């Protein structure tokens, strides 16, 4: 139904694939993941193909995103953290492109599904844990014992640190998911008001101007949110990776 704000999140199978009783169908979500990756990859690849010493506008965008993520990672995780640069850059570009593609009418938003954002968050935390233990062994556990804490409150602090560490993947994934979900529902609801009020005749059409203005304004806001959430996701990734690189802090 046209006015159902949830309809846009529905997943429809395009090519049914079933392996071992599990459904691995190529769906509209899969198609938009491919579109996200192809769009981001092609943009970065094609705009830098001339390797101009003096960059054009599009090449500047690619270079700016490169330096933006590089400085973000260097600021929070230091030069040792730069080994994760391809990882952080991929996450940033993937989330950003998925968010932006989702803003097109009738397009599916990959990041509006909790399982996708949660998988990305688990990937980040998994990287932190695996690299932390591989690099520092059990020294990685110093992460949970901040320095300069009086002995008597250490158990309490350690408990809090562990809980906060475990809640990271949840907060990281839910933040992105909820923002995308809420933004798209809001947009859809206001756009729905425009059509349903217009159906009521001349007065309705006059009244529909207000939700129309709101729809336009929220679309602008959603572009900001799309960028902000990709940025927040990448910044938090950098900060968590910093724990893996320097667990003593």
């Amino acid at each position, binding site marked *: *139904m046209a*006015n*159902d*704000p*949830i309809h846009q*999140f*529905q*997943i429809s199978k395009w090519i049914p694939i079933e392996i071992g009783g*599990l*459904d*691995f*169908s*190529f*769906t509209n*979500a*899969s198609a938009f*993941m*491919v579109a*996200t*990756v192809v769009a*981001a*990859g092609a943009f*970065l*690849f094609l705009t*830098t193909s001339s*390797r*101009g*010493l003096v*960059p054009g506008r599009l*090449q500047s965008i690619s*270079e700016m995103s*490169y*330096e933006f993520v590089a400085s973000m990672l260097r600021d929070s995780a230091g030069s040792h953290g730069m080994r994760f*640069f*391809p*990882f952080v*850059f*991929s996450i940033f570009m*993937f989330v950003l492109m998925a968010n932006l593609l989702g803003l097109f009418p009738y397009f599916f938003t990959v990041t*509006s*599904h909790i*399982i*996708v954002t949660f*998988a*990305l968050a688990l990937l980040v935390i998994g990287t932190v844990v695996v690299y932390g233990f591989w690099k520092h062994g059990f020294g990685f556990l110093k992460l949970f014992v901040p320095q300069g804490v009086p002995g008597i409150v250490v158990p309490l602090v350690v408990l809090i640190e562990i809980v906060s560490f475990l809640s990271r993947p949840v907060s990281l994934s839910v933040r992105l*998911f*909820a*923002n995308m*979900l*809420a*933004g798209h*529902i*809001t947009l859809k*609801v206001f756009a*729905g008001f425009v059509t349903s009020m217009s159906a009521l005749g001349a007065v309705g059409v006059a009244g529909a101007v207000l939700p129309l203005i709101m729809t336009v304004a*929220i679309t602008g*806001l*959603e572009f900001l*949110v799309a960028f*902000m959430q990709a940025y927040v996701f990448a910044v938090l990734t950098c900060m968590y990776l910093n724990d893996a690189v320097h667990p003593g802090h």
Partner: protein
Amino acid sequence: MFVASAFAASAQDAAEATHTETGVASEGAHKAGFPPFDSSTFPSQLLWLAITFGLFYLFLKRVVLPRIGGILEVRRDRIAQDLDQAARMKEEADQAVAAYEQELAEARKKANVIGQEARDAAKVEADAERRSVEKELEAKLGEAEKRIASIKDAAMRDVGTIAEDTAASIVQELVGGRLDKASAAAAVKAVKQ
């Protein structure tokens, strides 16, 4: 973001209140699966996310990031090189200016020396000329004085002779008789003295 979610909540309430069939549908969806919470789609989403994100990561790591990094590196090197060259050129220019100024100072000094020498030489020459002119003039003056003296002597002698002759004539006229020459000369001499 909070604003957006608040909007979403109120909008959803409104939507559910106004469209009862929507409310029924979304309530049904909550039980049958609000799409993002429908776990039957999870395997497919995870698989395709792994495939697409994995390929994306590899593509960026192998192709795109080395390329952009290379572009930035080349540019940084080029800028550093250009700055070096500019600094070198500036140094050269400074050296040229210093050399020029030194040369100028030397030339000025030399010009002063030459001027001084020329002045001195001119002065010496002028002095010499003046001295020779003065000597010549003195010589001429001396000669002239000598000539004047000789003329005067001659004149004086002539005067003596004339006086003697005149005296002799006067004596002859007045006294009659001849006055010998020697006594006339003695008389004139006595008068003259």
